[in-house]
């Protein structure tokens, strides 16, 4: 295990994780807003926002799926030392981390059951950039409508149609964080006009 996998935890865990948790709540409560979170650094290619998010949300009882280029020995060691979460395949994952291309198709992730809709996966999608343009969002937590650049359209529309089941999404780029819960309806700006 090399140094990179042992360093990069929170400097002040109670405060850093509380701030990050607040930001994580806000982003899902108000889809379309973008928050800054920082404090944790995982080996590349994990962004600072994604590292902070999994360090805040995951523990030994939340299985994580590392997709594609995010499944490296360094990152596995980092998760083992700082979080202790079991690493599993997409079918058992409570959290999944990767780029949109690596996570696709998202139909393999559990969407919960009617009795327990919370037993679904939260996807943390690493993006090159986060912008408030592109797709039009509407639904709970959004006054009128909001805008967010999403990597795709149809899968998110299908996911919203599964409500009360379905997946929840976080989008991360650098230290920026955005969220898309299953309650949000997504439409193309062109179609909406």
């Amino acid at each position, binding site marked *: *295990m090399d*140094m990179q996998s*042992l*360093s990069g*935890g929170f400097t002040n*865990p109670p405060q850093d994780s509380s701030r990050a948790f607040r930001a994580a709540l806000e982003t899902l409560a108000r889809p379309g807003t973008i928050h800054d979170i920082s404090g944790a650094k995982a080996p590349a290619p994990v962004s600072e926002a994604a590292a902070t998010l999994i360090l805040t949300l995951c*523990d*030994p*009882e939340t299985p994580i799926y590392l997709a594609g280029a995010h499944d490296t020995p360094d990152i596995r*060691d980092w998760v*083992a*030392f*700082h979080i*202790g979460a079991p690493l599993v395949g997409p079918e058992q994952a409570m959290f999944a981390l990767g780029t949109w291309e690596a996570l696709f198709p998202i139909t393999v992730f559990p969407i919960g059951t009617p009795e327990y809709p919370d037993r679904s996966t939260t996807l943390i999608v690493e993006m090159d950039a986060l912008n408030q343009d592109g797709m039009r969002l509407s639904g709970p937590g959004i006054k009128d409508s909001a805008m967010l650049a999403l990597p795709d359209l149809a899968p998110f529309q299908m996911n919203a149609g599964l409500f009360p089941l379905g997946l929840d999404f976080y989008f991360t780029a650098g230290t920026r964080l955005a969220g898309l819960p299953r309650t949000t309806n997504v439409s193309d700006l062109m179609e909406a006009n």
Partner: protein
Amino acid sequence: MNKMNPTPSQDEAPDSAARKAWMSVLAKSNPKDLNAAITAYGALPAFDWLRRPEIGGVMVRGRMGGTGTAFNLGEMTATRCSLRLETGEVGHAYVQGRDTRHAEQAAIVDAMMQGPNAAAVQAAVLTPLSERLAAQRVKRAEKAAATKVDFFTMVRGED
């Protein structure tokens, strides 16, 4: 506080059996004894925290007779921390109880035992501590032996 997982195995450790032995001595020693031994050793190197001391519970498991199926004996309070000396050695500590200073000192000694001054640390800190632990064990065994009752059966005269 979340449940603690054992720290991942260290491939680069010089000899994991020897390291297990000294970590065990550090964890079992009385914090006061450890503090005294470290003070006697002298100046400690500077270090950075990798994981600040945190207090949590570990499930102690046992096997009946050492061979049966595992059962949960009970939860125990433990403190753990990890640090890196300025010379680069990484030290880990898991100690019983909620004494964060104990965990910190145990991790420093663990890291120093992997460095160039291992022999000096061994002589100044670990040898006195393990002798003390051994003495405590003998004392306890003697105390228990003094209460031993030997049962015997008189010849019953049937033959």
